[in-house]
């Protein structure tokens, strides 16, 4: 029940600010890295890799400061769809570790070759195609945004994750899945599924033949990122040191190799550029997410 723990943890974090003067002896105390997700999950594994590498970069193995594993889902989308005591700007972004793309795919025997055909067909038949993904997450909101652009009412069949969504698509129970390439790629390779669109700014290198949603006339860019944030009010000197360490970790060959094994590309964005990304996501998703607010 990650979500819940998440709220509680984030509330606690927003209240914690390092004592004045912490910058001088930084990092004098162990840094606590809070990963509000299930043990063994994707975020947990990435953060373990990060902590292992950061330990080498810092004078002390680990060091009373708290850092938070941040994702677009938890830090931007979730505050838009639920009443939480924090919002996208309640934290100080440190850096982006990785970003992936979203893929929309259907079973290979369905008539559509791409997103544009799917939308045209749904309009012609006045149908509401179903899609699978967890409720209220970025993929869900991205499909709401696409539906508005195309004038089609896509119907979500909420799933517990990408795995169950793929199962439901392969079994013919739902029309499409929108999710991460990791879950979908193997079934594209075997020819059981067909990718209809990706949602990056540009085409995904692993799916170079699949046009983006923007190319197909639906300008929706959804690139779920994972990164690191510090509590708001962290002294600038400490933040600078953190960002410096962060950059060093991103260049650590061992860390990059570990991420590579997981199938994750390291795509570092540090400091203000990362903060700008949070703001951009906030602005893009605020409007479509309103329909989910209860």
């Amino acid at each position: 029940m990650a979500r819940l723990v998440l709220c509680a943890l984030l509330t606690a974090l927003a209240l914690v600010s390092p004592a004045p003067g912490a910058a001088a002896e930084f990092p004098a105390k162990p840094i606590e890295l809070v990963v509000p997700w299930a043990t063994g999950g994707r975020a947990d594994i990435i953060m373990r890799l990060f902590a292992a590498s950061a330990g080498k970069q810092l004078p002390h193995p680990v060091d009373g400061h708290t850092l938070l594993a941040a994702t677009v889902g938890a830090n931007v989308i979730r505050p838009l769809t639920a009443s939480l005591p924090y919002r996208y700007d309640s934290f100080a972004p440190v850096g982006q570790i990785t970003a992936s793309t979203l893929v929309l795919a259907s079973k290979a025997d369905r008539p559509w070759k791409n997103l544009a055909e799917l939308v045209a067909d749904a309009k012609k038949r006045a149908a509401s195609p179903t899609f699978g993904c967890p409720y209220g997450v970025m993929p869900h909101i991205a499909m709401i945004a696409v539906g508005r652009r195309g004038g089609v009412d896509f119907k979500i069949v909420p799933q517990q994750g990408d795995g169950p969504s793929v199962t439901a698509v392969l079994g013919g129970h739902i029309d499409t899945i929108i999710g991460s390439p990791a879950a979908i790629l193997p079934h594209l390779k075997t020819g059981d599924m067909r990718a209809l669109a990706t949602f990056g700014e540009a085409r995904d290198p692993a799916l170079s033949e699949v046009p983006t949603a923007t190319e197909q006339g639906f300008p929706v860019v959804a690139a779920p990122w994972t990164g690191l944030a510090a509590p708001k009010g962290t002294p600038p000197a400490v933040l600078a040191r953190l960002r410096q360490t962060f950059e060093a970790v991103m260049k650590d060959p061992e860390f990059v190799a570990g991420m590579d094994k997981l199938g994750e590309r390291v795509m570092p964005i540090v400091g203000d550029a990362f903060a700008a990304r949070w703001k951009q996501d906030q602005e893009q998703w605020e409007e479509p997410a309103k329909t989910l607010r209860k």
Partner: protein
Amino acid sequence: VSVLDGLAQGFAVALTCQNLLYCFAGVLLGTVLGVMPGIGPVAGIALLLPATFALPPASAIIMLAGIFYGTMYGGSTTSILVNVPGEAASVITCIDGHEMAKRGRAGPALGVAAIGSFVAGTVGTVGLMLLAPPLMRVALRFGPAEYTTLIVFALVVLAFLARSSTLRGLLLGAFGLLLGTIGLEPMSGHGRYTFGLPDLFDGVGFVPVAMGLFGLAEILDRAATPGRTEVVRGRLTQLWPGRADWQRAWRPILRGTGIGFLCGLLPGPNAVIASIVSYGVEKRASRRPEEFGHGAIEGVAGPESANNAAASGALVPLFALGLPSSPPTAVLLAGFLIHGLQPGPLLVQQRPDVFWGVLASMYVGNAMLLVLNLPLVGLFVRILRVPDVYLLPAVVLFCMVGAYSVANSLTDVWVMVGSGLFGFAARRLGFDTAPIVLALVLGPALETALRQALIISGGSPAIFVTRPLAALFLALAAALIVWNALAALRHRRPAAALIADTPGGV
């Protein structure tokens, strides 16, 4: 590559000194974690995951898979000995397993559970090796509508397998479903009946409720009826299942294996469903259904085989499609990914050493588990010779630690104590509380499937009868109700008897 070539290659991987060691470490840890309440396969694999970082991929997966199927062996031990289920799939084993122990037959119960688990684990591995791809194509047709009706069928079976009357079984099953609605609802994450308490957001946990309703209630009951256990100790003679036991147990073991393997292909709490369906089938098939609930060995042999076969079955979607169908296989998938492996249709081509090595290690691991568990039977049975003044407080402590350790939550300990008091009162009033626990586990799965099915059908319930498999399960459920009603009429029982307590209830 033919299956035999593959298997030869697999054994070459699995039988190296190093991999035998990791396999043994995995199944040993699995057995220990299975015996300990509160820590099941999910927590076990997740905790050990970091320890496998440095291992070669095949060794790591061999060990992690060993933990997974090893926990299924351990789960029955505490169910039989002290009426505390080690994990959800062993709740059913409490019913007849603990009754056997009370009658001085803990040895045969533990023995038949270990051998049934071995048969199921081995046959299940054969099934996984030979039938994974074709079975998976069939299993994929199993959508939300089919899943909904299967759970409805399991719930109906549940009401009839309770030792108290059907009406009471239905009542407590419904209560369990209601308990299951507490927490964040599974579709959109809105809180229900949480009173704003963060501890309730995750719902009422299965472990504290099971520990209370079974473990603590049993202790209170025993403490309130002195002298009962003395009888047991005096008769604790037979250590192994005898000839007559095997004659009664072999068919349930084989049927349980088949039922468990097929249920294992399905998503969600598949091992729980497997154990319930197996118990129901055995009670129907038996010539002595009246013995069920009072120490029938079939009631241990069937469900214990079923939950082990379900563990093998659950690996089918993972190996054939790379899709985890239940929480333990999801953490196992994380184990694959950490080592740069993507299980699924391509694994057997890309990494035949891992694919066949893990399969071969499962034969080895199941044999190890048998060798490991049979001598333990004698040791475990001796626990029953411990006088009540020491044993009972130890079990209470065991339950408290178990309830606490799931989420390091004191609230869970209070839930356990509350469930214990409730369970004690319910027993005294002649209610069998097993339906509460099982319905609590099945409830969220039922809700998710039901709502998904209705979204897909646009709100029309016709989806449950127009899809053939779904209609079949509903028909089976209806047939079971009618069959029982007719049986009750034939015996010309007055209506009041339906509500009356059956003698010897929990």
